[in-house]
């Protein structure tokens, strides 16, 4: 009886501590959502600058995810299947954008694509500008969010039992056929989760994007600009819209299962 009441105390303490953290995470967002008049948020969403910025944010982040997936998915398959010296170091390099400040990531990127760099000069010779345009935004978004896709896709490929691929080769399938008919279909849920995570992360990026392209303005930059120019009252409705869109992706992410889980169970 005594042990049972002690255990109950333990679980109450755990729940109170957990509740504190949940409150800390949810309160600012809920407070912001509740503080706004829905009609005002609705009107703000249709302001040309805001609508344009949301459209720009959505398509640049989506394109960044899709374009880079062409290389990121093969890289993830290699990381999951091949053992080579320096693999751990490579994983560290891939995750570098997660740990460095994003403004620093933006500076680093600027060092690569600014007008006076070889890449910038090459682009200029074709009449293109690598900074201050959607391409630069996509690069900045991809740079900071790629680790999410690579990690999720690597886990997903690692979750595909190797003996299934071995069996497919033994049945006469080429390595390319094994990749496209066995590995990719079995890992796709994890890859899609990674793509959604990358997309969501790209959408919310401010630090790196503002360094390479203040204009055209993506939503996080627009929120910052309205806050510094007009104050909190004008920045909050835009922030609410961005939060609602982010929440939509958050729910989508949770609906999709964990990478590779299903097939690990199968193996």
């Amino acid at each position: 009886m005594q042990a049972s009441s002690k255990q109950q105390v333990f679980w109450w303490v755990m729940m109170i501590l957990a509740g504190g953290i949940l409150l800390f995470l949810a309160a600012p967002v809920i407070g912001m959502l509740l503080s706004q008049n829905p009609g005002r948020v609705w009107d703000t969403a249709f302001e040309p600058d805001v609508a344009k910025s949301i459209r720009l944010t959505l398509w640049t982040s989506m394109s960044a995810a899709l374009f880079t997936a062409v290389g990121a998915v093969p890289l993830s398959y290699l990381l999951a299947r091949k053992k080579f010296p320096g693999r751990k170091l490579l994983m560290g390099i891939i995750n570098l954008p997660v740990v460095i400040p994003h403004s620093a990531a933006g500076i680093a990127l600027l060092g690569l694509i600014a007008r006076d760099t070889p890449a910038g000069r090459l682009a200029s010779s074709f009449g293109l500008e690598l900074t201050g345009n959607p391409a630069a935004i996509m690069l900045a978004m991809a740079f900071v969010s790629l680790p999410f896709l690579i990690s999720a896709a690597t886990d997903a490929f690692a979750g595909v039992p190797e003996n299934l691929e071995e069996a497919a080769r033994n049945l006469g399938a080429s390595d390319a056929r094994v990749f496209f008919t066995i590995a990719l279909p079995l890992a796709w849920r994890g890859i899609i989760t990674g793509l959604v995570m990358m997309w969501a992360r790209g959408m919310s990026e401010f630090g790196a994007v503002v360094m390479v392209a203040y204009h055209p303005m993506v939503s996080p930059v627009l929120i910052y600009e309205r806050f510094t120019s007009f104050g909190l009252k004008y920045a909050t409705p835009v922030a609410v819209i961005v939060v609602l869109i982010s929440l939509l992706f958050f729910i989508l992410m949770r609906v999709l299962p964990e990478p590779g889980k299903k097939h690990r169970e199968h193996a």
Partner: protein
Amino acid sequence: MLELKNISRHCRGFALENISLRIADGECCALMGRSGAGKTMLLRIIAGIDRHDTGSVLLDHKDISKATIQERNCLLMHQENTLFPHLSVMDNITFPLKARRMKPDFIRQRTHEMAKKMGISHLLSRKPRGLSGGESQRVALARALSVRPAILMLDEPLSSLDMELRDEMISILQALKQEGQSILMVTHQLEDTLALADKTAVLDAGKMVQYGTTDELIANPQSRFLARLTGIRNYYKVDFHQIKDYPLIYIASVQNTRVSFFVHGLNCPERGHLVIRENQISIAVNSDAINPGSNQFSGVITGIVRKGETTEITLRNGITMVASLLLSDIDLMDISIGDNAVFSIPDEAFRIIGSPGI
């Protein structure tokens, strides 16, 4: 015909050494041995999944050692289920045919032919997840056989099946043999070997310790592992020394021990295996009086295990010796683990298995 010539492979502290065997068309060879003996490694080498260091793999007299896994047509059915979970049974069976770029008409015809043969026509639209163990095995077999493999390799195909499904699978494999399918099968079960294998190879720690027809091997087991499988409990590697002036009396010294037996009336090689039939040993409990010069051994009882109508008594006296007694005899004895006992072995209990290679 599959032929292995002196296959060797060294890998992470384990070595498969000089394995040679030959499997003719329509022949089944069982590969037996303890866990970790190298059986699965050998199958993987033949399939082309793993590479060997030296030796050659020949298929119909053609060296395929350098051929890729896809080119070999040596199909391996893994111990675990390797049906592709995202594909239907139909797509699983068509997989190797599509990989070989067969014509759609042929693929359709062959798939239905194989499904009918394996009795899985009603499962073609199902996904593997809902199939029973026996159904999964039959789908895997249909998938492997759809491309008429030169050799079908089975890694413990019957180990996960219940008795009924096991009998069913044995019938299917026997029918395949009749049709000329060569089979190489890893198994731990003597019953599977007896039911299917024309030849048997026994591996121990990467070396082939015995290879021949299954009947020969069962009659003359050259390893403790095989002897134990055939039901022999007392099996010792011995050196035979003839006693001067007594041509038919030998002292059989068990290698690496001080234990010796007197063997009367048998022709003995210099070295060989000595088998003592456990059901011919008699026991005297709580006694340590032995008659010198006879085959009597005193020791401590270390095990009493009931086996159906008999009970096995284990005696330890430098070597482990097992006697098998009828339950009715055991009931008359007051015997328990830790008691002293004397085992008496009559001359007719000995059997010698010569082995020039030991």
